[in-house]
């Protein structure tokens, strides 16, 4: 056990910077996922069949493609096609676009969970459709999907390891642990990476449990 502790103290910088990179990947990808996901959800609930279809195709494509394949397309595929995309852009964009499909589905179900009377009432008060969406339906929809967003952030933390482990090789927690492992030949390096991942996921769980009791609407 003291060996394992020595491994942590001697390589603390590597583990800490890996943890920080993981958090940054998740943070940037989450912003992309929220923006794209909200737009796609708006497409899916819009009063237009064509827009619904476009949103549906987006969701079905990105939900059913393996994240690893998406990352390979975005990084190596796009590079070979002559566009010099950086590993950070490819990694966060890949994870963000992938998660956006799930967020769009969550928001869509949230929008439908808001009673039909709400939007009818808003429209009859003379609000335009986009305004009724933004002022009346979406604030309620976001509150309904808080627990789902928590699950999705945890899934993003786990999926960010794919970004680090695939050919992009961003120096995230898993990557750093592998470097420490190969330098010291001690598999305990993985133990500390596991502790790091559990630390993040448990924190997210606790924070969202709190948010849920404060804001969430149970329907």
């Amino acid at each position, binding site marked *: 056990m003291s060996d394992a502790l020595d491994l942590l103290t001697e390589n603390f910088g590597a583990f800490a910077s890996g943890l920080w990179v993981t958090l940054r990947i998740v943070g940037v990808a989450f912003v992309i996922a929220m923006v794209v996901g909200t737009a796609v959800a708006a497409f899916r609930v819009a009063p237009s069949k064509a827009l619904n279809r476009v949103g549906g195709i987006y969701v079905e494509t990105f939900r059913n493609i393996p994240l690893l394949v998406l990352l390979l397309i975005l990084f190596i595929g796009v590079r070979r096609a002559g566009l010099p995309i950086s590993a950070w852009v490819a990694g966060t964009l890949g994870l963000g676009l992938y998660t956006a499909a799930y967020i769009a589905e969550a928001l869509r*179900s949230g929008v439908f969970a808001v009673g039909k009377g709400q939007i009818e009432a808003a429209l009859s008060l003379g609000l335009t459709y986009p305004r009724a969406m933004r002022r009346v339906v979406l604030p309620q929809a976001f509150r309904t999907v808080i627990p789902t967003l928590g699950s999705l952030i945890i899934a993003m933390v786990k999926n960010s390891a794919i970004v680090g482990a695939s050919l992009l090789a961003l120096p995230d927690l898993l990557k750093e642990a592998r470097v420490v492992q190969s330098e010291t030949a001690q598999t305990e390096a993985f133990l500390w990476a596991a502790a790091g991942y559990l630390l993040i996921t448990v924190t997210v769980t606790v924070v969202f449990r709190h948010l849920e009791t404060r804001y969430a609407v149970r329907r």
Partner: protein
Amino acid sequence: MEYLFSYDNWEWLWTGNNFRFLLEGLLVNLQIALIAIVFSLIFGLMLALLRLSRNRFVSIVAGLWVDVWRNLPLIFIILYLALAIPGSWRDAYASAIPDFFPDAIQDELVLGALIGLVLYNSAVLCEIMRSGIQSLDRGQREAAASLGLTYFQQMRFVILPQGLRRMVPSTVSQLITLNKDTTLISIIAIQEVVSAGSTLASVNFGVEVRPAYLQVFIVVGLLFIAVNLALSRLSRRLEIRERERTGTTVEPVKGLEDQVAVQAAVIPPNR
């Protein structure tokens, strides 16, 4: 755009055995997924029963086990097991696996991948099954108990048939995630569809038509989309029929990547 649609960059697809090579890779993924699905369902059910055990110690230990494995990245588990599994286990696997599986699955590295997939997915499936069982009305068990059924009989004849049936949609969406996750084993050098794609896109010797990386992986992606869409359509049909028959609704499960798919499927496409 010009690059994406140019004929030269797609010509590899119908040249020689390229497409067949990709399909053979995909078959390895599907077989590994199938083996992992069978074991994950069995272990997931066992874990769910342990978590619901009336013995507090058993249920707490099972809960900790499940929470650890489902909160770790699967790729992390697979990479760790690639290092940590003793050589003797691998030898045992290589000699125990039946001959009718393709060479890629006979590879001793596959053992670590399978154990990783099963550890992770059985933990997630345990949560799905537990919430299905817990969503049942208490009266069901009490009624069964008052009829004189033993604990085992209550589970076997009353609780599990109803509880598990409710969780079919969540289970299927997790199995789709599992199917996608089989691509991760390319990172520990198992010959499956992603490795096949990389091989195709890097061969240089004696071929007139050189496959373009982007197009190869677009095809790989489309293959997965086709398989997974078929699976989710099937699950949706099952679920609608089930709801019409029993009038039950689906309980959300925490920590499941694709639970939104299930919730969304509950809502009719046009309200």
